[in-house]
């Protein structure tokens, strides 16, 4: 699989560029997911986020997830770009694009890929609030992990 399909970037993500990577004459369906920085989470106001990655392993793991999805949904094309560095409210953190000959596999593979990214790609998010900061994802500090997600 072309490793250019799986990217980390410090620049704002151009959604169309990610979509362009999965365009295919025999795919009539493209599902994309865009994860953006949400301002309010459980009543608390986020000022900004910072993303950090174990870069080579993160790219490799995203490619593995893409291959998994293609095994489960043959005929799909997958591209993933994840942003690193400092992000403000409504900035794009991640874009997942999946093309497929027909609709259902495009939606299903896309949702699957997002779940797998959250499970196993070595990328970390630090939240900045008015009263402090925290690296998210640490179970010892995060009793209700789901509440802390930004998507």
């Amino acid at each position, binding site marked *: 699989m072309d490793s250019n399909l799986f990217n980390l970037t410090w620049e704002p993500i151009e959604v169309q560029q990610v979509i362009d990577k999965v365009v295919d004459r025999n795919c009539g369906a493209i599902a994309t997911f865009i994860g953006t920085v949400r301002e309010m989470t459980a009543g608390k106001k986020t000022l900004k986020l910072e993303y*950090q*990655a*174990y870069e*080579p392993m993160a790219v490799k793991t995203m490619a593995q997830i893409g291959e998994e999805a293609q095994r489960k949904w043959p005929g799909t094309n997958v591209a993933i770009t994840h942003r690193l560095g400092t992000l403000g409210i409504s900035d794009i953190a991640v874009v997942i694009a999946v093309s497929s000959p027909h609709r259902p596999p495009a939606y299903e593979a896309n949702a699957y890929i997002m779940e797998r990214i*959250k499970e196993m790609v070595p990328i970390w998010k630090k939240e900045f609030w008015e009263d402090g900061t925290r*690296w998210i*994802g640490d*179970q010892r500090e995060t009793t209700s992990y789901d509440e802390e997600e930004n998507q």
Partner: protein
Amino acid sequence: MIQVLLFARVQEEVGTDRLEADAAGKSIKELKRWMEDRYPVSSLSRTMTAVNEEFANDDEVINEGDTVAFIPPVSGG
């Protein structure tokens, strides 16, 4: 010597993003204990690790020249 890479909370607690350790022949579990003894880091017992960019379990033995990364619970996406 081996390379140890630190991220997120672990990186902040230890105060650096990488260090070297004389840990060839040790298991991951032993490396975790060595880290806990030497640095002001919270328990690493439940922290995942990767050896040379592949997830590894606590029993894996580290070889000379390996790169070990501590992977706190991830929060990308």
